[in-house]
C-alpha cells in the first residue's frame, strides 16, 4: 500500500504531501519525506551516470526506513516526487510506471494558469487524479 506521496519543489519546499492512511501520522511522514531529500541530494550530486542513465529521472529506492520503502523521482525542473510505501517487494517497473503517470498528472496541474509556480498545489482535480493513480498502483502490484 502506498502510504504517502509528496511533491517537493526545487528549493526543497513541500508543494504537495498526501497521506493515504487513516492514522494521524502527518508529522512522521513529513519527517520521512524531509529526510529522504538528503538522499536525493546525495544521488544528484554524486551521479554515477553512464550513457544510458544520463537522463534518467527515476532515482530508485532511496532508503528503507523501519517499515517503509522510499522511492524518488526527479523531474527536469528539479522537482522531486517521493513515494513512501509499505510494500516490501515492489517491482521497479511498477514504481517507474507510477512515477510516469504521476509526473504527467503533476505537469497538468502546474500547467493550470492559476497555479503559482513554487506554491503549494491546491488543485482538487490533481488530488483526485493522484488518488486514482495510487489506487491503481495497489491493484497492479497485487496481481
Amino acid at each position, binding site marked *: 500500500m502506498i502510504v504517502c506521496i509528496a511533491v517537493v519543489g526545487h*528549493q*526543497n*519546499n*513541500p508543494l504537495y504531501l498526501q497521506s493515504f492512511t487513516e492514522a494521524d501520522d*502527518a*508529522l512522521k511522514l*513529513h*519527517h520521512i519525506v*524531509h*529526510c529522504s*531529500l*538528503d538522499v536525493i*541530494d*546525495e544521488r544528484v*550530486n554524486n551521479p554515477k551516470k553512464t550513457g544510458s542513465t544520463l537522463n534518467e529521472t527515476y532515482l530508485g529506492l532511496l532508503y528503507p526506513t523501519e517499515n517503509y520503502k522510499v522511492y524518488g523521482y526527479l523531474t527536469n525542473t528539479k522537482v522531486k516526487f517521493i513515494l513512501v510505501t509499505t510494500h516490501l517487494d515492489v517491482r521497479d517497473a511498477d514504481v517507474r510506471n507510477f512515477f510516469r503517470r504521476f509526473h504527467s498528472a503533476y505537469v497538468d496541474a502546474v500547467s493550470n494558469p492559476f497555479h503559482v509556480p513554487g506554491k503549494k498545489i491546491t488543485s482538487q482535480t490533481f488530488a483526485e487524479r493522484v488518488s486514482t493513480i495510487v489506487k491503481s498502483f495497489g491493484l497492479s502490484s497485487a496481481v
Partner: protein
Amino acid sequence: MMLAPSETRMVDPAKTFLGKMLLEEITPVVMVLRTPLVEEACLKNGFNFVEMLHPFCLFKNIDVPVRTASDQPYRLHKFKLRLFYASDVRQPNVEAAEEQLKQVVVHAAERDVSDLHSDPPELESVLNQTKPEALPSWFKIFNKELIRTLAFSEHEAFDHPVACLLVVSSKDEQPINKFVDLFNTNQLPSLLNDGAMDPKILKYYLLVHDNQDGTSEMASNILTEMRGTFGSNDCRLLCINSGKDGSEEKQDNPWSAYKNDVPLSEDLGCLLNVNDLNEIKDLMQDLSSKHIIPHMEQKIRMLNQQVSATRKGFRNQIRNLWWRKGKEDTPDAASGAMYTFSSVESQIRVLGDYAFMLRDYELALSNYRLLSTDYKLDKAWKRYAGIQEMMGLAYFMLDQSRKDAEYCMETAFSTYLKIGSSGQRNATRCGLWWAEMLKARDQHKEAASVYFRISNEEPSLHAAVMLEQASYCYLFSNPPMLRKYGFHLVLAGNRYYLSDQRKHAIRTYRSSLSVYKGNSWNYIKDHVHYHVGRWYAILGMSDVAVKHMLEVLACSHESISTQELFLRDFLQIVQKMGKEFEVFRLQLPITNMPSLKIIFEDHRTYASSTAVSVRESLWQSLEENMVPSLPTSRTNWLESQPKYSSKKYKDSSICVAGEAIKVGIEFRNPLQIPISVSGASLICELSARSEAAASEIGGQYRDSLVSVSRQQNDTEFRKLVSSWEQNSSNSLFTLSEVNFSLGGGETIMVQLSVTPKVEGVLKIVGMRWKLSGTVVSYQNFDSDDAKRKNVKGRRKGKQSSSKNLEFVVIKSLPKLGGCIHHLPKRVYAGDLRRLVLELTNDSESSVKTLKMKISHPRFLIPGSLEDMNVEFPSCLERQANCRNSHVQANTVKGSNSCFSFPEDVDIQGGKTLLWPLWLHAAVPGSICLYITIYYEMENVLSEMKYRTLRMHYDLEVLPSLEMSVQISPCPSKLQEFLVRMDVVNKTSSENLQLHQLSSVGWEISSLEPDGTICPSELLMDGQALSFFFKLKNCRKPLTEGSITSARLLQGSDVSLDPQGSNEVLFDISSSVLEDFYHYERLHLGKSIQGHQTTVDFILISQSQVNSVNHEPGWQSDSTQLFSHYACLCSIASTSPVWFLMDGPRIVSHDFSISFCEIRLRMTIHNSSNAAVSVRIDTSDATSSTVRLSDVAAASQYSVSSGNQTGWRDVSLVNDIKITSDVSSSLISKASSPDGITPFVWCASSSTRVELESMSTTEIPLQICVFSPGTYNLSNYRVHWDLRFPEDKALGDGSQQSSGISPGHPFYLNVLQSP
C-alpha cells in the same frame, strides 16, 4: 615497523580516536592486593593506594625493547598499566553501572544549562565548527563508561590480570606472613578462582613505609627479609609521606587530571614530596618495563610454541577439524564455560590478546583467525563474536583491508545481537568501536547508521545519546546531510524526554531548529517549537518558552484541535508568568500592512468616510477652479512658519490639532478558532513645537540607525514599548482603544485614531493590542515600507500623503461639518424635491467666502436662501406676480462654474448654516454625487488659509415615467401641429398623477374644445397612456434684441387634470424648474435658444403616496413632485415652407351642361428666417379616379378629429417611416399612367411667388372636372428655394436650402346635380 606503518595511509590508526582509545583501554591489568594499613597511609593524602599510583601508570616515553614471536625486535615507547583492586576485578554491578551512566548524562546537562537561555546555534556556525569542537566532550566519557560496564568478562582475556601487586605496610605485624595471606585468601576474583584464567600469575611484592611513622630502618630490615623469602627481584620498598604537612607545593598536581569530579583540594597528595613522587615513578617504570612486559613477552613465546605445536601445520588442522566435527551435536553454548584456562582455545585467546596489548597486531590477528573458526564450529557464539571484534580492531590497527575490518565488526555486531540479551551490551560496545572505526575513516554516514542500530538495542537514555551521536555523524559527513541531522536530533530529543532528561531534550530539539528554519516544513517546525516551548515551561523558563510558542501560533495549516492545543498551552504559559507578556510583532492576529490606510484632514476635510475613499483626482478635478492653486497655498503657510520649511518636514503631511487622524488596518485571524483582541491602539510620538526644532538632529540620527537587520527588532521593540509607556503618561494627544473579536479565518478592518492636542510634529510609530487579555503585542509600522512608498508617492504627487506617518500638527482651525438632510437613497426618475444642506462650524472662529461645487448639476443644484422659507411644492405654482428675479442665476449656469454663497454668508463659531438644495432625479441609474465646499478662515493669521469640505452621496434613481412625443404637422391648418405624447409608468408600485404638460416657446392646447385631455389622470404602474395636443408656434420673429428676454421661458401649459384646469398649474419659469430645464438642455449640448423646429416639453406629475422613502423625518404624506423633460422634440416636417390647399369639398354640378370649374386657394407660409422662392407645379397627366379603397386608406391621413380610437401604439420613429411610405406610395400611384385624366389643372401650370420671412401669401388655383366622382387633388409639387442674405449663406447645415414637397392629399367630391 608495525607500530608506525609508513605506507601512504591517510591517518596513522594509532593516532585516531579509536586507536588512542584502544591503546588506553586494552592494556595489561595489574591486580592490587593490599593490607588496610597501606590504605590508611595513603588516605592521609586524600586518596587510596591505586589512585596514588594511577598518574604513574601511563608511560609516555619509555623505551622497552621487545621481540616478536618470530624474534623480530621492536620497541615500545608508550605503555599503560591498569591497576585494580582485587575486589574490583569482576563484572560491575548492572544497576550501579546504569546509575553511573545516568550521572554522566545528568552532569552534562547541568553543565549545559547556561546555554539553554541563549539562542540556539545558527546552522552556519554549526557547519563551520571543526569537528572535535562541535562534538560535545561528554559523549566520549559516556562511551567509555558504557564500554567499562563490560569489563572483566570471561570470554575475553585482555581484562584478565597480567600481574599481581601485593602491598604490605611496614607497620603491619609479620609483614612476610601478610604477603602470603594476601594472595591466599578467598578474596581473589572469581576469574582466578573458577578457572577462567591461570592462577599462576606474576607477583610483585611491595612494602610501603610511612615516613611519618619513623625512619625507614625497620622497613629496610623487612625488605631484606622479603628479598630472602620472595626473591630479590620481585621486592621493593616504597617510602611515602616524607614531606611536611602542607609544605610541599607542587607545580602541577599529577592527580588533578584524574580526579576532576572532586573539587580540586590542596591536600591531594599533600604529604608527598618530590622524592616520594620520583620513587613512585621509578616503582611503576620498574614494574612495567622490567617485569610485566618481559613477562608478557615470555608468555607470548611460550604460548606461541604450544599453539604452533598443537594447531599450526596441515596435520594439526586436519586433526582439529575432525576432532571438532565429533562435537557437532553439542548444544549451543553461549556462555562457553567449557573453556578453562588450560584449554587450547583459551590459550590462543590469551596469546592473541597479549600480542595485541604489546602491539604485535599481526600475531594477534593470526591467532584470532585461528580461533574464530574453532569457536564457530563449536557454536560458542559469544566468544566467536568477541574474536571477530578483536579481529576487526586488529585489522584497523594494522590499517589493512578496511573491508575485512568492517566485515568482522558487522559479524561481531550481528552475532552479539543473535545471542539475545546477554550479548546486547557487547553489541553496543562493538558498535561503538565500529562507529569510531568508520569515523576515523571519514565514513560518517555509515557510522551514523551504526549508531542508529545501537540505539535500537539500548534503553531510551542510552539510545538518545546514540541518536545524538548519529546526528552529529550526519552533520560531519561530506556533504553534510542536514535533514538527517535534524531528524536524528529530534529522535534523540524524544528519547531524552522519555528518560526524563528535559534539558537534553530541549538542547537537541533546539539544535534541530536550525535545520528546519526558513523552509516551509511547517508540521515539523511546529512540532519542534511546540515541544521546546512546553519543556521550557516545565523547567520554569517561561520567557524562552513563550518565545518558542509564539512561533507556532499562526498555524493555519494544522487541524482545529491542534490549533486549540497550541493556543491554550501558549496562554497557560503566559499566565504562569503572572504578568502581561509583551511581544514584538505577534503573528496572531495577522496584520495586513499593505492595507494600512491613513485618513487625515489638512485643508481637505471630509464629511463622511465614503467621501474619503473617493479618488483624490476626482476631487481635484472638481475643485479645480474653486480653490487657489496648490503650490501657492502651501508656500503661504510655509512662509509664515519657516520652522517647518526644513527638508525634514517636506514629506510630512499636515494635520490640525484637535482633529483625529484615523488609521485603518486589516486584522486577519489565521486560525479556525475565534480569538479576542482588546485595547488596540496606536503608538505615537508627538514632539511639541518648541521641542521639534531641537529633536531634529536627534531625529536624523535615528533615521540613520534604521537598518534592516534582525537585531534591530529588539531595539525597535524596546523603543515601541518605551514610547507607549511615555504615551500613557503624557497627554499631548488622545488615542482611541478598540476591542474586537475575530471568528475563525475572519478578516476585519479596524480603525484606530489619534487626536493631537498641541502643535508640533506627530509621528505614528506603530500600534499595540492585547490578545486574550494577556499577551500584549507591539507592532511598528514598517518605516522602510513607508519610506519606499513615499519615494514612489513623490513622483505621483499628492498620493504620498496617504502613507506618510509623520505629520506636522498645526494650530487648531475651524472646520465645517456638513450633511444633506433627508437625501433619499432611492428616488424615482423625475423626482423633484427640496433638500437642506447643513453646515456646522464647531470651532470658535468663523469662516467666510463659502463656495460650493456639485459634480452633477443636472441632479442637484443649490437654491437661494428664499427657497428655505417658502412652501414646497406650492411655491412653484403659478402666481400672478411671483416672478423670481434670478440675480445670481447667471453664475449658476455652465457645467463647470461653481456656486458662490452670497458675500454676507459666513458661519460664526458654533453656528449652523442651512442652505436649500434642489434635487431632481434626471435619469434612471446610479449616481454618485460629489459636493465640495470651499471656505476661508476668518482669522488670516492661521497657517491654512482655506479648507474644503468634501461630501459624497450615492443616489439610485429608479425609472418612473417614460415620455415620448411625436409631432406631426396638422394637415388642416397652417402653423399648427399635432402632438402625440405616450406616457408609460415604469415604476413597480407607484401610481402617478399626471398634472400638467408645458411646452417651451410654443403654445400648447388641448384638442378638445372644453380642455379635457383624458378620462383618468392617474397612471397605474405599468400602465401606458397616449395624449394628443395641438401645438402652435407662438414664437415671434427673432431679432437681436430679443435674445436677452428669451431666457425667461415663454410657453404655455396645459392641465392634464380630468377636472379641467381647476387646479393651479405650476410655473415652469419658476427658478427651480427653469434651472433644471437649463441643465437638461446643457446636457444635450444645446443652448436655450433652440432651433425653431424643435419643441421642449415639461411633464409634471405628482404622487400622493410615498412608498419609496420611509426615512425618518421625511413626511410621507406630502405630495411628491415629478418633472420630466423632453427636449428637442423635432417637428416632423423639415421644410420651412408650409402650404395648405383650401376649397370646397363637395361640389354639385350638372355635367350634362358643361364641365365643372372649381376654384381652390393655396395658402403658403414661410416659417424660415430667410426669404424663400416658391414654385407650384401641377401635373395633369397622371392622376386617375381614386377608388374608394384609396379613399379609405387615405382617410387616415386626413382625419383631424381629436378622440379617435384604434390608434396603434407605435413609436415615433415608426410613425415617421409609415408616413413617408404612404406619401411615396401616393406619388407612385399618381404617376401611374391610367387612361384619361378626369380633371385638369387650369390656369398656369407653374406658379412662382417670393415670400419674405415669416410671411403668408395666398395663391389661387383652379381645376376643371369633367365627370362626377371623388378626386384626390394631390398631384402637384411645391418647389421651394431659400434665399439667404449674402452674409449668412447656409448658416445652418441641418437646414436644407431648397427642396420639393409633394402635394397634400385633398379630396373633392363632385356630384351630378339633379
